[in-house]
């Protein structure tokens, strides 16, 4: 199972589809219910950021494996306005949309690895990884 699953994100319904897909992949990989819920929650937040800030984008989910461990990778990608101040966006409590503003720092706490690549005007790519214990 090394193929990646792509879920297009255009509306709030797609947020639910993406997180359900993520949970199902995580469970199949042998993640616990708790870890699968953490992954699903992270996907929910990332997908909502796409809908809220960029309107359209996609979530890609795939398994990871190397000689010593297995895991799951989720990439959230959009071609929206991008984030002009990444440092600020990664601070707890910061938001430009009047939301709670816990999105990205919260997501970072749910997973093992978190990287973000964003250019103002060019979109945002967030990659998260979680490894099986």
């Amino acid at each position, binding site marked *: 199972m090394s193929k990646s699953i792509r879920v297009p994100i255009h509306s*709030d319904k797609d947020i639910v589809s993406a997180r359900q897909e993520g949970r199902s992949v995580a469970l199949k990989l042998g993640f616990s219910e*708790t870890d699968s819920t*953490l992954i699903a*929650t992270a996907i929910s937040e990332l997908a909502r950021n796409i809908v809220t800030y960029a309107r359209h984008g996609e979530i890609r989910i795939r398994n990871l494996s190397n000689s010593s461990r297995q895991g799951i990778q989720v990439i959230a990608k959009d071609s929206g306005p991008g984030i002009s101040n990444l440092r600020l966006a990664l601070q*707890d409590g910061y938001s430009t949309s009047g*939301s709670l503003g816990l999105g990205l720092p919260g997501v970072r706490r749910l997973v093992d690895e978190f990287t973000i690549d964003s250019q103002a005007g060019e979109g945002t790519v967030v990659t998260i990884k979680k490894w099986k214990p």
Partner: protein
Amino acid sequence: MEVPVLKQGPFLIATVQAALTDDDLIQLRGAMIQRVVTSRSQGVIIDVTSMDVMDSFASRTLREIAQMIRLRGAETVIVGIQPEVAFAMVQLGISLEGVVTALDLEEGLAYLNHMVKGET
């Protein structure tokens, strides 16, 4: 997916039966406020046992529902948050501060009954 709302005496019971989209949550918020007014309810239970994920939007909307209902003089109890969902909420850094939670429907009803009796 609409959330069914049952009237039981002075209370309303809303039972979430599947994953909710943002629109579903907003619809639930509107429906609950309206039902509390038309039924003159003193308490509301929202059973979230079937909710797969409680992300920032869901918890914010539930908190708003509870706050709005409190302004009407009624109390809201959220019941059935699954252990793994609670774990994810804490990791994410979201809380249901100011909202009463209970283990399950039975505990929630016991809380509301106690509250109503205490008032009269």
